[in-house]
């Protein structure tokens, strides 16, 4: 998979280059077709001979050769992306290998942790939390028998495999008959890829009661102290862990109680009601770690989305041509 592989690690430059290339292709394509159309018009007027129509020939070439070349490339990139997600049944039959990620933040070292990722699931967690009040060290660990599915990774993986499935039967033996058919296919593939990418780039915005109610709080072996909340999510290429320290609001407190809405990361002072208690976030600790293969996957998504769009643009150049043909 040489072409896409080159993009890894140089995402910005690569996409930048692609952008310029695309713009140039577009400009030339437009110019060419304008000229061709002039020829076409004169020919239609003069001879009425449609068989030697250069635009038709070009369009036919596009449908029969170029589309397949692009789809081949697209499939290669997506295969590579799906390998990153360790899709079961995609060649690697062994259980997904375990990876340890050491989480940290550039600021304080109040929270340190090691999370073990196995495919799309967190299998182990070791979090050390230095309580700011008494400098006591608190150790949090997952239960042995449980795994925590990272929904974002699972969804992204499933979307990619849907995209691959959509492309699965469109190899060289399949003949595209209309431009609209290619556009429809590309739209469907792009829909899946955009969703896959968005799943990773936009973590769920949760309210504090939702975090408190999530199964993650029940994952820990000595169960989580009642004044702590934990949330794990993916943001772009990073695995993020947030720990919220809470304190109860006095019922007669003069503070104006306003429950906080949903957010990816709540800030200290956010309030919520849990059970019969009113709680306030006193400290927020966020630690994160880059997952290299997520970075790769995101680059693959971007590259393949651009490929799809370019193919759509190429087809659209002939839109005046194909859309009037009977389906």
């Amino acid at each position, binding site marked *: 998979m040489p072409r896409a592989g080159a993009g890894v690690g140089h995402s910005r430059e690569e996409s930048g280059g692609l952008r310029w290339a695309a713009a140039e292709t577009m*400009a030339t394509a437009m110019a060419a077709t304008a000229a061709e159309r002039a020829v076409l018009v004169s020919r239609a007027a003069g001879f009425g001979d449609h068989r030697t129509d250069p635009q038709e020939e070009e369009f036919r070439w596009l449908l029969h050769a170029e589309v397949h070349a692009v789809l081949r490339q697209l499939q290669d990139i997506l295969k590579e992306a799906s390998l990153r997600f360790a*899709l079961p*049944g995609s060649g690697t039959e062994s259980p997904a290998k375990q990876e340890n990620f050491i989480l940290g933040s550039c600021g304080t070292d109040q929270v340190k942790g090691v999370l073990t990722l196995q495919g799309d699931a967190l299998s182990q967690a070791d979090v050390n939390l230095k309580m700011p009040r008494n400098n006591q060290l608190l150790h949090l660990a997952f239960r042995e028998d449980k795994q925590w599915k990272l929904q974002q990774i699972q969804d992204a993986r499933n979307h990619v495999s849907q995209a691959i*499935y959509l492309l699965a*039967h469109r190899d060289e033996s399949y003949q595209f008959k209309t431009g609209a058919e290619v556009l429809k296919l590309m739209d469907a593939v792009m829909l899946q890829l*955009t969703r896959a990418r968005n799943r990773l*780039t936009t973590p769920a915005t949760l309210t504090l009661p939702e975090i408190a109610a999530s199964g993650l709080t029940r994952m820990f072996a000595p169960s989580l102290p009642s004044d702590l909340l934990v949330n794990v999510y993916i943001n772009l290429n990073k695995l993020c862990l947030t720990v919220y320290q809470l304190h109860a609001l006095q019922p007669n407190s003069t503070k104006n109680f306003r429950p906080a809405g949903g957010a990816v990361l709540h800030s200290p002072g956010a309030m919520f009601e849990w059970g019969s208690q009113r709680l306030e976030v006193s400290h927020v600790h966020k630690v994160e770690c880059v997952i290299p293969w997520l970075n790769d996957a995101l680059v693959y998504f971007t590259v393949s989305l*651009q490929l799809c*769009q370019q193919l759509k643009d190429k087809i659209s150049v002939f839109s005046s041509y194909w859309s009037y043909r009977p*389906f």
Partner: protein
Amino acid sequence: MKTSLQAVALWGKKAPPHSISAIMITDDQQTIVTGSQEGQLCLWNLSSELQISAKELLFGHSAAVRCLARAGDFSKQPYVVSAAENGEMCVWNVTSGQCVQQATLPYRHTAICYYHCSSRMAGDGWLLCCGEYQDVLVMDARTLAVVHALASSQCPDWVTCMCIVHSVRVQEDSLLAVTVTGDLKVWDLSSAINSIQEKQDVYEKESKFLDSMNCQTIRFCTYTERLLLVVFPRCWKVYDYCDFSLLWSEDSSSGSLFAGGEVLAAHRVLIWTEDGRSYIYQLLNSGLSKSSNPADGRLLKETVYPHLLCSASAEENQSLPFVMGYMNERKEPFYKVLFSGEVSGRITLWHIPDVPVTKFDGSPREIPITTTWALQDNFDRHQTLSQSILDRFSGSGDEAGAPAVTTSEYVPSLDRLICGCEDGAIFVTQALNVARAGLLHSGSVPDSPAHKVLNGHQHSVTSLLYPHGLSSKLDQSWLLSGDQSSCVILWDIFTEELLHTFFLEAGPVTSLLMSPENFRQGVLLSPNDWTVCCVCGDHSVALLHLEEKRFLLQARKHLFPVTAIKWHPVENFLIVGCADDSAYIWEIETGTLERHETGERARIILNCCGASQLLTPEPAPSAPWETWRHGSVEQGLLGCPGLQAEALWQAAEPEASQRPFNILPVKTKWSSVGFHVLLFDLENLMELLLPAPPSDTGPSGSFHGSELLRRARSTVGRKTLTTKRSGAASPPEPQAPPAAVGPAQGKDAITFLEESQGIKWQKKTKSSRKMLPRPARRVNTSLTLDTAKLFLSCLLPWGVDPELDHLCTRHLNILRLQGPVSLGLASNKGHFSLMLPGGDLCSPETKTEHSRVNLFSRKVLDLSNKYTATLPSSLGTSRGLEDDCDCLQESNTITYLVSRLFLVNKLVNMPLELACKTDRSFKVNSIHNKVKSPVNDILNISSFYGYTRNGKTNSLIPEADLSLVKLISCWRDQSVQVTEAIQAVLLAEVEQHMKSLRKTPADSCPVSLGQTDSRDRVPAPPEVDRPEVDLELQPVWSAWQQCCEYALRSVRPWNPALLSSC
């Protein structure tokens, strides 16, 4: 969508694209339902001889339809649920074509199963859904609310397919579901019903890894209650249901992918592939042997192996993929049917023999195709009426020469339809005339109605913009058009002059947008300058300055389709959002790219512009938004509706409310095929037809009610009552100045000059808001009458009684239709159905009678007879006496008919709650003779409209009307469709009316009205009659207001949207 809006579709020669993505046959085997990638549902009639014909298209989804399923016990409720790619769900009544319930949830479903356990569940049953989320959701089939979820304790993942297993032996239901990764999970449904209702966690009972991905179908063999058929893309497998041990696995031989399967009978399965082939296998018993799965080796197992009996395949050379299904009905009149839908909108049916056998030599037998039908066939077969909107205008007049319309725009203020054509010509025509020419019988309409052709484009016109429609401050002569080769031309629409041509050199101009109204350009532009924003095929955006006729900016670096454009007025930035979630910020003054952001930051930039009340191109709910949807949505990746009808429909609402007639151009995705929808607003039409309310309405008495009403109406963006009241404040005006009426009524060509003068005059008066309604009224009166006539033409069942037809044409000037019309039926906001050409011929009994045009169903005649029976016979004679003036009589009759239809429409569309109340009070009424309010409402309404019948008010509620209302309410309960009811009433009323004419043949109408030019009759001043009428109207009018007030009060708690129809 208000219920008083009636729609008629003007289809083109080509069917709108319908790429079937989901298909099902209803339980009564009379309807095939398909869902398309464009976002519509299509209902196909399936006759008892297995003949197919498309019936109607259902609009409502704005994204591709993913799955369809039954949503109720079909014998009681013919409901089907559809789920779209963007999380929209709708429950449709497939007999009436109405949307019963809709919801948009953050879940995208790929499969839905209806589940109802009568012994343990109250209510309507559940929809078990799976899709792009973990595990299985349980939804309420009626309210579409999420009830609960079935969770899995091990490896939760997306579920791709499921089936409900009902075991007769143990009377237990369970749900089998297979995840993407191939985990088979079993939930016990029967025992979980209580836990689900109490929202306790329900986990799977069993789980088994099947070792294949992307499961397509899972089916339980109900005949043996032992076998389980599981279809994967590359293989299909048979499992033993008792212990989930693998009995057989068959790989795909031809390299095609399996798409589904079904159990035909004991040990007989049907498997189909993505490319439209299907195979029937007999599963033969191979006797006792070791299980094929070594892990289960502890037992000796029977294994099975398949033997191919029959195969079937669709026609060659088709596009992938096919969606197929199988319907197994053992009841007698039903067939075993295998059906498939294609991307091209074609349906193929195979009748599967009860006992499929091989040929004598043992080779598989080929099952022939029983029927095949495409949407286009409907259009080819029933081409009598559905003409392209421009066919009558092609300059040369020859049949083949009409160029295809590529884009069109309706300008309400001028009543003009502007059509851009494939060959570059732009036709500007009078909209009502186009509609008449398209619908009515040729010969009865002037041959070449007034039209203008703007020639200037060399290539197909791709977009149009009429700036004045977006802001009244703009020059109303301006028209902008963009073409395939990147030319944008500014026209003077009145003088047909080409004012300026812009060459963008950036591919086809996909959309033209107007900058927001109070867009200030600061340094560069004076406050009154306007810019037009062109989105082009290469995703570039160009800003054009209309007044100075120059380019401001051409932004060319976008890689993905443009989805949003925002102006930042203070810093003079143009912010362009693209489909890949990136944002480009352009400095307008220098034309340089200031910043390019992606991801979260881009989203923040785009959002913050909207949030801080800065200007966006879609601030107004009217046309800028509409045009914008054209461009963006078509290219947009997410949530892209195929046909933009829905958006247009909604966009048209505020406009439609102000005028009785409207034309909506509908574009289609992935193709150039488009069609037009004519909208008639019954309520508005009636208000315009009715004379002004009395001059001395006591303000104290009715002020409160009217105020309420006005407030209610303003919520729907309408100010009809203000119109009324301001009209009431002035003395009754003459019906219309002759100058304005003459041309329209005479159906002569109106010159643009005259029209534009009229409009200008009207525009001047626009400055004072109170003055506005009256001029509009004057200009429109005759136009309104014409609209009403066209509307009645569309509804009348022509050919039922030739004499009646003749009388209608002669005395009422209602002209005969060319052929059956395609009516639309709106169910609620954004959901409506459109009949397809030939859709009315579906029922076999009407098919035989060719002389009848436009009879919706046989039922109409019966209903009509019933209605006539309830009509008091005395009315006919009383009406016969009143005709002192032909013209007045004609318009009165038409007004009366329209008001009757409005009443019927209202009654049939009345919400259930109100209806129940009415029924109850009917009983009370009949027993105690005490008039309860809801009845009173209706009676007031009916008597109010009843006034128009003979120009006299009956302050007492006539007994007849009570019985009529009763009858119609009764129809509603019998689920008679609105269109049927309306047509029946119309037919009866017209018959009744004509009876009087027949009795007094030539004396009352001395001159044959139909033939001669009616121009001279038109200005006949109705003043003689008017004051008297108005005076007498007064009590009814205040009663009407009171009843409206009541209705508002009683209705508000349930449904504010309903107010529009009150």
